[in-house]
């Protein structure tokens, strides 16, 4: 049951996106997120969608695999969408479609709902392309490198990155351990699947105690192993895998600049999201 999480998100493949520098990918995703929130009409969202599809295509990750990451927050998307549908209000006059007591459904609400759902959808899809194509270690390296300027204000960037990579490194190990302990306790008749919330929480004690004990044991071992290799912090440390900036990353950065510029132009040219509505109303519901 925990196997899905064991390997994190990473999807091994050889592709353009996989080969990009993690820093470029992180910057690109930041630009992408900005674009998703900047886009003010459906043309803008369409442009972002095109970028997303291109990204997925060049990453060679099956589309279904990327879609699966949305599954986890599907509930959230539906929930916010429904709330928006029934309780949308704005200063302007609404084109009411249906009304019952205090619940109203208007054309604006529908448009707003679709818009919001698409935004969330694109957001999750885009970020999961990043995590699907970048190993956690590369991601931490990228973040460390991008945060380097913070060293000037004595922010412990290296230590933070080290903590992150150790945490990431131990997720699969501890997951394995958890699975093993769960199996062992199941063999002794432990039942994790029935009963109410409190019963289930209590049933986890025979798993959590040994897990905690082993985590401390591992931490101690790791500390000793690092001491034995004379680890003494960031000072004078070199890297085994150096991040290199290649033409791919230049392409990525140029594309992200193009994306944001494009969105700004689309916003200016087509107006807000209800402009579409005005256009339809103007053409089909004259009078």
């Amino acid at each position, binding site marked *: 049951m925990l196997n899905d999480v064991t390997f994190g998100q990473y999807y091994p493949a050889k592709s353009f996106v996989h080969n990009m520098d993690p820093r470029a990918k992180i910057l690109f995703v930041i630009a992408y997120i900005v674009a998703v929130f900047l886009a003010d009409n459906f043309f803008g969202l369409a442009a972002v969608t095109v970028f997303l599809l291109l990204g997925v295509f060049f990453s060679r990750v099956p589309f279904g695999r990327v879609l699966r990451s949305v599954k986890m927050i599907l509930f959230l998307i539906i929930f916010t969408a429904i709330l928006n549908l029934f309780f949308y209000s704005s200063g302007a006059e609404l084109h009411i479609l249906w009304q019952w007591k205090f619940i109203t459904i208007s054309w604006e609400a529908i448009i707003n709902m679709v818009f919001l759902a698409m935004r969330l959808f694109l957001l999750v899809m885009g970020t999961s392309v990043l995590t699907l194509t970048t190993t956690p270690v590369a991601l931490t390296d990228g973040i460390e490198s991008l945060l380097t300027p913070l060293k000037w204000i004595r922010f412990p960037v290296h230590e933070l990155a080290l903590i992150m990579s150790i945490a990431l490194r131990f997720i699969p190990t501890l997951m394995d351990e958890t699975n093993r302990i769960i199996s062992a306790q199941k063999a002794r008749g432990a039942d994790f699947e029935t009963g109410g919330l409190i019963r289930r929480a209590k049933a986890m004690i025979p798993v959590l105690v040994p897990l905690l*004990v082993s985590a401390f044991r591992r931490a101690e071992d790791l500390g000793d192993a690092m001491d034995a290799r004379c680890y003494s912090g960031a000072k004078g440390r070199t890297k085994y895998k150096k991040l290199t900036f290649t033409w791919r990353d230049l392409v990525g950065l140029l594309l992200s600049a193009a994306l944001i510029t494009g969105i700004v132009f689309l916003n200016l040219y087509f107006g807000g999201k209800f402009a579409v509505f005005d256009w339809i109303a103007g053409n089909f519901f004259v009078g």
Partner: protein
Amino acid sequence: MRIVAQGLTYTYNPKSPFASQALKGVDLSIEEGEFFGIIGHTGSGKSTFVQHLNALIRCTGGKLQVGEFDLTDKKCDFLRLRSKVGMVFQYPEYQLFAETAEKDVEFGLKNFCKEMDEAQRAQAVREAIETVGLDYDAIRDRSPFELSGGQKRRVAIAGVIVTKPEVLILDEPAAGLDPLGKKELMDLLHSIHGGWCKTVIIVSHDMDEIAENCTRAAVFSEGRVVLCGTPAEIFSRDEKLFSLGLDVPTTAHCALLLRKHGIRIDTDFTCDDFAQKVLSLWQAERGEGQGSAAVKENSAAAKDSEEDSSPVAVKENSAAAKDSEGDSSPAATQENFDAAKDSEGDSSAAETKSADGQGGDGDAE
């Protein structure tokens, strides 16, 4: 309970790039009353197989019948199955969690035997703790985390056998134990085997352990059973085992070396039997009546002539083994066999070792 697996398959992480087929069609039957060994290198599917036996891994392909339980049936009563098929994982001491050893051992009992009252439970816990060779009154109120490594493992095993499972499965039970601990553990298994525990299944890398203890064994490789039979049958296929990256018991190594010198020994690869066979061979060749003191002198003399060196050294050690009532002698004889194997090693070293071995025996008793 008879265990029958037919065409059992299992794939980890199916339909993902990490998919790996651990079992590719396992056919195996284990009869009630056996002391069964499962051999195989890492990743051969042996652990996956044994986890199927008490439904820790659900059957996804093939058939599996354990006693009256049909494990392919989704409505199978898994809780009752698990009370009948006990499972001791590798390093079981890492599953200890309760505040006291007594409570930890009681855990399985509370889950499986809900109708028991407190007095009955206390009695069962006492029995289990005493079965694994610990002092119940001294240990019951101590935290399992402050016990020694060996004690922890015993408490963990007590936690599994407290429900008296008919089938007991142990994954590398002796891993990380010292020779004495290993021997005591095997003695423990033999003492419960045949009583309430009808079948014992051990997964092991240690071929000596399999040869000495098991009535039958199966060799797993790449998700299939490649060899199955008595240890004598399996270990006579040494070339097959070597090609699978596995080893044979020390006795089989010795038999191999002897065969190179033209001496064939038909043994079932237990130390006792091997020593007996070598002894009778030696007696047949030299006539009877020579005491062990003479043998030791001979062994020093035989050092120069390479051909005689190994058999004589073996004879000497087997004599030593016989002296010590064959109790913890397997360990001692093995050490000496190692020494004997190395024909260049001088025999005084071998003698020192054998003396050490006997000293160890003294400690053991």
